[in-house]
């Protein structure tokens, strides 16, 4: 597939703190990419660099094959909605819509108007005085109605309840089905969105620790539970991501899918086999205690795509 965004050896320091450390990744056209990782992992920094809202310390970013920095041709085709998106004082919801129409060449006024209805936004109210959830809805509306070929959402749904989030997913899918485009979404609610994602990037401590197709990652790791010595026999030679024990009862997460031979062995030894959800896999990748061991195994498969 066509790579729309390419970051190569990107490093970013903030006053001596390394926010991103030698990150190389690509995002392909019309993918819905989940950018995952703990708070402070570097997600927002990465998104700011991809949209040229911040300067690189070293490395390079190419969007549509060009440097996005002060590049109108590139930037007018990107929309970045920040988690803490600020709006000018006294800006009412309808001013935001007017600004969107001015700024984004592909702005869809009809979609914007229908989303105002659907999200029940008061068009005449000042944005800064709206509730947290409503401000999130304004951001979602801006992002979707921009119809920008690359739309980036940073934690788009702070303050939104479960119903409103489902609404966001439904609108996002509907909009994506009608007008496919490239969407990047940072989130902590991995279980909720995992079905929507085609691709996943996981950052931990400023480094890219996992990258790949969501479906590949979903079936990548396995949890083995049972008596410790038997689990050890079934797991022999497999890279271990995590271990939990309750006396002799052990739950071992291995970074592998089991072949039929191991499955049969597990069955005969009363060892239970369970797949690892995307959320659990990401949690394992982000646990600093095991990060050393986990990152090494993960990054060998991660990194290159």
């Amino acid at each position: 597939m066509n790579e729309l965004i390419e970051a190569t050896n990107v490093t970013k320091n903030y006053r001596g703190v390394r926010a991103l450390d030698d990150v190389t990744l690509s995002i392909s056209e019309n993918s819905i990419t989940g950018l995952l990782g703990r708070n402070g992992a570097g997600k927002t920094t990465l998104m700011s660099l991809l949209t040229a809202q911040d300067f690189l310390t070293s490395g390079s970013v190419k969007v549509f094959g060009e440097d996005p920095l002060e590049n109108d041709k590139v930037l007018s085709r990107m929309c970045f909605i920040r988690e803490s998106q600020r709006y000018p004082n006294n800006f009412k919801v309808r001013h935001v819509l007017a600004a969107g129409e001015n700024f984004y060449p592909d702005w869809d006024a009809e979609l914007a108007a229908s989303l105002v209805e659907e999200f029940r936004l008061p068009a005449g109210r000042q944005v800064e005085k709206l509730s947290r959830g409503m401000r999130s809805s304004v951001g979602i509306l801006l992002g979707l109605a921009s119809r920008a070929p690359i739309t980036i959402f940073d934690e788009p749904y702070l303050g939104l309840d479960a119903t409103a989030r489902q609404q966001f997913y439904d609108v996002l899918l509907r909009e994506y089905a009608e007008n496919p485009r490239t969407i990047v979404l940072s989130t902590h609610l991995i279980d909720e969105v995992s079905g929507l994602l085609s691709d996943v990037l996981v950052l931990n401590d400023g480094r890219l620790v996992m990258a790949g197709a969501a479906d590949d990652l979903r079936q990548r790791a396995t949890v083995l539970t049972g008596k410790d010595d038997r689990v050890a026999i079934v797991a022999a030679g497999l890279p271990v991501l995590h271990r939990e024990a309750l006396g002799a009862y052990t739950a071992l997460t291995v970074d592998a899918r089991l072949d039929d031979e191991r499955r049969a062995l597990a069955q005969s030894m009363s060892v239970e086999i369970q797949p690892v959800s995307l959320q659990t896999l990401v949690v394992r990748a982000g646990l600093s205690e095991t990060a050393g061991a986990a990152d090494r195994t993960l990054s060998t498969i991660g990194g290159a795509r």
Partner: protein
Amino acid sequence: MIDDGRPIFQQIAEDLERQILDGTLPEESQAPSTNELAAFHRINPATAAKGLNELVASGILYKKRGIGMFVSTGAHDKVLAIRRDDFQREYVEPLLAEARRLGIEQSHLLVMIKGGRV
């Protein structure tokens, strides 16, 4: 109905197979489109398309250009044959393994299967 761990496209394909098997989707009827599947299951349309394409590859669905996907004639029997092949591995083998763990002898197991009391 989508669970973790298994590839979603595979679950989509199996779900459609189940519908063909129980008559929800009769032969020569139109299968749901990629976007309909995506909206229904709240999944990425590419994943839904992959599920549909699995079934096209195995001849269970076929494409009508510009219209959509349809259930092939003979798809019901084809799915049935595949499911019967899988039955041993998916149902019988785990049953035998659990019976062994519990010390249930095969002769007892047979009586249970026939619906008798042990």
